[in-house]
């Protein structure tokens, strides 16, 4: 079974600064996918960024980037130039490859507050 751990229940950052959210996972799989999801206070969860484990290059989506360390089983999310709209719960998630049911295992979440 896979486990996903987010060790920071809450974080805060000043607007325009950079913040990094940590995520570690445990698996015996060699091929898998990792995701970061954002859940704003309105509650609808959206996909922020996705990483395929067999790709060495770290994924980037505008101000969001990841630091994927496969050997260390670490998948941190960096938010640059933080904006007030980044205030949300952030969930790290793991999905095995060859997974017909597309089963996701979620971490416990990190609540991020961006302060003006």
């Amino acid at each position, binding site marked *: 079974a896979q486990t*996903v751990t*987010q060790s920071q*229940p809450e974080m805060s950052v000043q607007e325009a600064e950079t913040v990094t959210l940590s995520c570690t996972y445990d698996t015996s799989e060699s091929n898998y*996918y990792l*995701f970061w*999801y954002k859940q704003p206070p*309105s*509650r*609808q*969860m*959206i*996909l922020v960024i*996705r990483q*395929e484990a067999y790709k060495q290059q770290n994924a980037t989506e505008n101000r969001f980037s990841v630091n994927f360390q496969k050997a260390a089983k670490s998948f941190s999310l960096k938010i640059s130039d933080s904006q007030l709209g980044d205030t949300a719960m952030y*969930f790290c998630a793991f*999905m095995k*490859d060859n*997974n*017909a*049911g*597309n*089963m*996701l295992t*979620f*971490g*416990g*979440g990190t609540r991020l507050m961006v302060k003006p």
Partner: protein
Amino acid sequence: DVKVTQSSRYLVKRTGEKVFLECVQDMDHENMFWYRQDPGLGLRLIYFSYDVKMKEKGDIPEGYSVSREKKERFSLILESASTNQTSMYLCASSLLGLAGNQGRSFGAGTRLSVL
């Protein structure tokens, strides 16, 4: 964008009541999921379905059942609600197979309080 709609944002029910949570998606996704979200525990999978009339248990199915009579609709049923089922419930959908590895779409959630 896929739209996943949950019929209620907030529900208050009494212990022992039968509760129905409805979810509809409009993009012909094969997979549909019901999660429960609790502080510090993240999202835990209750049930999922990969086709009409098909269902599979997730990590915490006890006390719940589901129904998928049509591809676009996935219902979560609490046969006899209990106070420990007070939680936020999220519905999600995704494509089947490799295409589903692109991620999934979530509804806005239903906050259920059982008194």
